[in-house]
């Protein structure tokens, strides 16, 4: 019995070898099944999340496509503003306003980003990441053809994309979305599948270029970002500028207009691009060695600058990338929300429950909306603070801190320098979010005074960020294995502060969150007492955490 099962794969391998044409692909089936097994949680989670996100927009899309022609005309006017078009898609979707076409407009672009992200990460994980860790070498020494790894990786991504598309096509017509025809849903699903394939192909190229997985996914995601930015610019622009969307594969699939025109042909160039990029990936892969990239590895300085060898300079260097990333993201996020601030009154006219919730905070509708946006900005900034404040922990568990703390650097100075970077960086990130919101908000409302108000509203959240960082430090000092609990602070702050507003939660639940004590500027008055108290709490948490770290064992790798 056991002999039978033992020999079965072996005969398969021999058969592959005996066919010269199949040699380059030998082992693909096994690798493909192995990849699916490795991703048995990850990929279903991605697919379900994207489908869920799409279906959960059904209500929003229905609200935004009112049947009353007058209201509908208002909505079209609001949505055809440049800021809204940049965030959604081409204006043509508004020519036939139904809940289904509204969902297409709102979600096809975001769905494309998510499907692209899933595909890129999947392909990189099963090709370059394995090569970088060296496991690919082990695999390639077996009966595995030259193209088997890439083929298996692409097949894995394609499987996920196909399942995602089918699920969308199958669920959208039954989701209570008015105007969702079966044919339109099929096209919607196919568009998402095809754009996923495009970025799987893009990743197949980028993984050949650099020897590092991070650089490979970074390059592919840069293409994804550029594709989205091109279509945004093209959809907003007129005349020659509008051609830009035609340069973007996301622009192509959006022009299939599911639930509007239901055109299939725009998917063809996207499909051709997917095939072309994948083919380019195969060709490039034959021009390099396993483990090496086509581009030579970048080298750097022979020695350290004076700034780098100062503890603080070193911490800043380690946090630099994250600070820049979060700063850019929050600047854009703030600007996006800011640019629609002028339209808030129109947009929320018919959403009574939201208006009521916002009105509770006080101030005008614009002000209370801005203060809610500021909470979102602050929570995102606090994600940075948690990541950065927990960096010492990952330095510790990776074993990198051991030689560092065997020098003249004390534990306190080392941890404190990371903290300065985390709290200072967090404040900077927060400020940039507020800057984006302030600049774009003041411009869209046409009120210059709003700029300073919004900047101040952002800064008011800084003590909440410091408390969040303080909780992370306290855990790091006293319960280093439980540092992940620090994530509960932003999660709870968001849940209570944002979602809780709609649910009318008791006040003490809000008081448990550091964000709950921040005065909701500009909707309410500035009160200094909670800010000072929060700062003191943060200082106490940090002092306690550092004291704990000074007296505990360092955990070694």
């Amino acid at each position: 019995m056991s002999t039978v099962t033992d020999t079965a794969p072996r005969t398969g391998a021999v058969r592959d070898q005996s066919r010269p044409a199949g040699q380059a692909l030998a082992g693909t089936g096994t690798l493909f099944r192995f990849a699916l097994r490795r991703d048995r949680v990850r990929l279903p989670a991605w697919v379900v999340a994207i489908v869920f996100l799409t279906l959960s927009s059904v209500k929003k899309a229905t609200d935004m496509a009112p049947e009353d022609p007058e209201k509908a005309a208002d909505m079209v006017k609001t949505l055809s503003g440049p800021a809204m078009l940049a965030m959604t898609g081409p204006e043509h979707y508004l020519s036939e306003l139904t809940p289904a076409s509204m969902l297409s407009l709102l979600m096809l672009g975001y769905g494309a980003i998510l499907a692209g992200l899933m595909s890129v990460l999947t392909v990189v994980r099963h090709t370059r990441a394995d090569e970088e860790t060296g496991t690919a070498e082990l695999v390639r020494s077996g009966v595995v053809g030259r193209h088997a790894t890439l083929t298996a990786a692409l097949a894995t991504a394609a499987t996920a994309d196909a399942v995602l598309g089918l699920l969308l096509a199958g669920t959208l017509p039954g989701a209570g979305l008015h105007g969702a025809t079966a044919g339109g849903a099929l096209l919607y699903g196919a568009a998402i599948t095809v754009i996923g394939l495009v970025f799987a192909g893009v990743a197949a190229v980028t993984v050949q270029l650099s020897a590092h997985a991070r650089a490979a996914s970074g390059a592919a995601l840069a293409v994804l970002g550029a594709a989205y930015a091109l279509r945004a610019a093209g959809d907003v622009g007129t005349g020659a500028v509008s051609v830009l969307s035609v340069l973007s594969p996301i622009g192509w699939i959006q022009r299939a207009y599911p639930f509007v025109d239901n055109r299939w042909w725009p998917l063809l160039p996207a499909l051709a691009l997917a095939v072309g990029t994948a083919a380019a990936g195969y060709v490039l892969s034959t021009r390099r060695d396993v483990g090496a990239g086509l581009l030579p590895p970048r080298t750097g300085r022979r020695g350290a600058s004076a700034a780098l060898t100062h503890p603080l300079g070193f911490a800043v260097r380690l946090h630099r990338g994250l600070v820049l990333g979060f700063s850019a993201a929050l600047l854009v996020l703030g600007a996006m929300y800011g640019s629609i601030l002028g339209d808030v009154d129109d947009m929320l006219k018919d959403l009574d429950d939201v208006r009521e919730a916002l009105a509770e905070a006080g101030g005008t509708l614009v002000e209370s909306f801005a203060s809610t946006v500021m909470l979102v900005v602050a929570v995102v900034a606090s994600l940075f603070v948690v990541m950065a404040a927990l960096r010492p922990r990952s330095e510790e568990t990776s074993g990198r801190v051991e030689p560092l703390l065997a020098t003249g650097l004390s534990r306190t100075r080392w941890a404190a320098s990371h903290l300065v970077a985390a709290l200072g960086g967090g404040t900077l990130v927060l400020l940039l979010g507020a800057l984006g919101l302030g600049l774009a908000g003041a411009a869209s409302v046409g009120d210059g005074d709003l700029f300073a108000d919004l900047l101040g509203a952002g800064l008011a959240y800084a003590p909440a960020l410091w408390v969040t960082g303080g909780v992370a430090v306290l855990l790091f000092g006293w319960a280093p294995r439980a540092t992940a609990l620090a994530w509960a602070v932003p999660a709870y702050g968001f849940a209570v502060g944002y979602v809780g507003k709609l649910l009318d939660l008791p006040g003490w639940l809000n008081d448990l969150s550091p964000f709950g004590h921040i005065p909701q500027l500009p909707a309410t008055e500035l009160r200094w007492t909670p800010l000072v108290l929060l700062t003191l709490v943060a200082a106490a948490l940090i002092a306690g955490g550092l004291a704990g770290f000074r007296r505990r064992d360092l955990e070694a790798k």
Partner: protein
Amino acid sequence: MNASTTATAAAPSAASTTAISVSGLVKTFGSTRALDGLDLQVATGEVHGFLGPNGAGKSTTLRILLGLLRADAGTARLLDADPWHDAVALHRRLAYVPGDVELWPNLTGGEAIDLLARLRGGMDVKKRAELIERFDLDPTKKGRSYSKGNRQKVAIIAALASDAELLLLDEPTSGLDPLMEVVFQDVILQAKAQGRTVLLSSHILSQVEKLCDRLSIVRLGRTVQSGTLGEMRHLTRTTIEAETDGPVTGLEQLPGVHDLVTDGARVRFAVDGAHLDAAVRHLSGVGLRSLVSHPPTLEELMLRHYGDELSERGHTSAGAAADASAAEGSPR
């Protein structure tokens, strides 16, 4: 000035002749006893080998000496100071090379060397350049693209380019190729000639044989033997091969003789150091034609200490091996 130099050199205090003094050190991780009363004495200026299998407690000892871990019991003194309370002051006087060097992926090797060396309080720039040349390291590569051996070189160069008076090296050459191993030995001998103290944890026996003045063998968190290689050899068995004029009889009745093989006029046996004289006299009584003796190698020394443990494990519990490796692994 001259007088003061002579004074310090001529009259070293009793304490300053001992660089490391550890006694009865105990450290537990959960239910694992990584150190179980370990003793270690390292004299100033000597190269001291710290030998033992994986999980014996070598790295844990070094981490306690660095103040990264706090001992549960026992005392540890390093350069006349307390390794936990005076950690920072001590670290300016010592350099450390871990057995598994991890570098920052975005920093070049050169940057990492400077970072580690300057945070300790500076280094000899000429020495740095010389070591980079000798170890054949490309300092412009990023940390993530270095192999294990090259990461090891970065830490070795950062440690040896300093003027630290004490070097704590935890299996420093793991991952280095034999050529680099030779360079390493050369550099350590140089450091020794400069009067620096070196504690070298290792399980490469030839390295210890070449470099170390004295050595300590640890097993299951306890020191089982300490001394010079010569002293240890004296305590162990020498292998004798001899050809005699006639057949040798009665050798098996002598105390301390083991593994006797007789083949006519040829004999081969092992004899305990204390009984070597009697055995050789017995042979010369018959008439010696040729005599070959092998001093015990370090391998044999180690096997002698771990031999019982190995057989014990085989009989009593297979879990002992897992326990021992868990001791090394548990700080994770």
